[in-house]
């Protein structure tokens, strides 16, 4: 079983559109994991049935025992997030502002404050429209993605792939280079980079690649919308050559990406040039995985 992680560094390059396309092409050969939990949207294209759900807990939340509270106000004063206002004659924790640092608990003279683990959302195991299994999550309002949540989604997906004897796990990674991205990279066999020929597209590609390089994972790159800036595309190709990253495909700007999306479809479900380009890229990725 091989694990493929799709990353972009920059948002808006078409990462999720391409991941979902790969997931459709792989069909029941793959288990899909949406680790871009801050802005999870792959479910719009994969139409999962939310068959199984479980609560997810991450971080902590301060709770004040009003019977033990002497209303000295030290917690409210010390909280640098302004999370403990005085409302209706009691000090109360605003869960949206509380960062769960636990400082209030330390400074409270009467030990009236305790920390409890905070439910931050749900993890789902679904069947998709292409008859594959998908692991995804939904965060509660104000909750944030974390390395922990990514690890959970990914481990569930890997476990299911093993049980079902699947060849691939396809992971939609999160943008940036932070904790969730590092967590999505550990144990991966291949990274598909999706970029676009813009200044920030190349900048963020270089940045994310420095992280991938550290973990010594082979990578290939798809340049999406390559024709909107031929000069930048050349610069990206030069960067790929220099870093020994496989150039998987150049995909032209195509308004039908959006058209497909409004029909809750991936571009590979419409008869378009990108369909054949992405198909070709998928064969190349599979080749690279068998040759390594």
């Amino acid at each position, binding site marked *: 079983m091989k694990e493929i992680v799709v990353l972009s560094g920059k948002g808006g390059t078409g990462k999720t559109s391409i991941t979902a396309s790969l997931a459709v092409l792989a069909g029941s050969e793959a288990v899909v994991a949406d680790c871009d939990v801050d802005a999870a949207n792959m479910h719009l294209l994969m139409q999962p049935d939310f068959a199984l759900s479980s609560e997810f807990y*991450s*971080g902590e939340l301060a709770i004040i025992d009003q019977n033990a509270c002497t209303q000295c106000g030290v917690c409210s004063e010390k909280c640098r997030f302004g999370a403990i206002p005085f409302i209706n004659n009691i000090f109360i924790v605003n869960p949206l502002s509380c960062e769960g640092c636990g400082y209030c608990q330390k400074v409270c003279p009467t030990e009236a404050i305790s920390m409890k683990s905070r439910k931050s959302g749900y993890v789902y195991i679904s069947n998709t429209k292409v008859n594959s299994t998908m692991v995804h999550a939904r965060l509660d309002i104000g909750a944030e993605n*974390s*390395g*922990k*949540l990514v*690890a959970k989604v990914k481990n569930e997906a890997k476990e299911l792939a093993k049980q079902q004897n699947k060849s691939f796990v396809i992971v939609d990674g999160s943008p940036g280079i932070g*904790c969730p991205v*590092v*967590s999505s*990279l*550990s*144990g991966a066999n291949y990274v598909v980079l999706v970029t676009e020929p813009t200044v920030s597209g190349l900048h963020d590609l270089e940045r994310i690649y420095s*992280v991938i390089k*550290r*973990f*010594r*994972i082979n990578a290939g790159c798809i340049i999406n919308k390559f024709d909107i800036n031929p000069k930048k595309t050349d610069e990206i190709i030069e960067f790929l050559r220099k870093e020994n990253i496989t150039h998987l495909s150049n995909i032209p700007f195509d308004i039908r990406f959006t058209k497909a999306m409004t029909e809750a479809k991936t571009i590979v479900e419409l008869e378009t040039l990108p369909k054949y380009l992405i198909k070709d890229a998928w064969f190349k990725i599979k080749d690279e995985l068998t040759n390594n």
Partner: protein
Amino acid sequence: MKIAFTSTGKTWDSIMDSRFGRTEFIVVYNEETKELEVVDNSAVKNEAHGAGTATAQKMYEIKPNVLITGNGPGETAATALKNLNMKIYVDAHNLTLEQAYESYRNGALTEI
């Protein structure tokens, strides 16, 4: 020599954990006493953020001479580990601890 492994289990037959920060266990083999010591890392695994540096902190407590792992620590954890006099060997993916130890002894693992 004390050799630390990032591991998914507690014995020589356990499979290596590719992760550094969120590894399930840190298994330490003492070559002098031939004993295995197991450090449960589940508390760190459950941290929302900062798992890499928390595990690096544990390495300072264990003080192994050698660390054998998979992907290797990320940038922040690697910086934190710099002052620890410990060699790091990577790419021991999908091996049992025993196989990983053999590979290390045969010089088959990459040092970073």
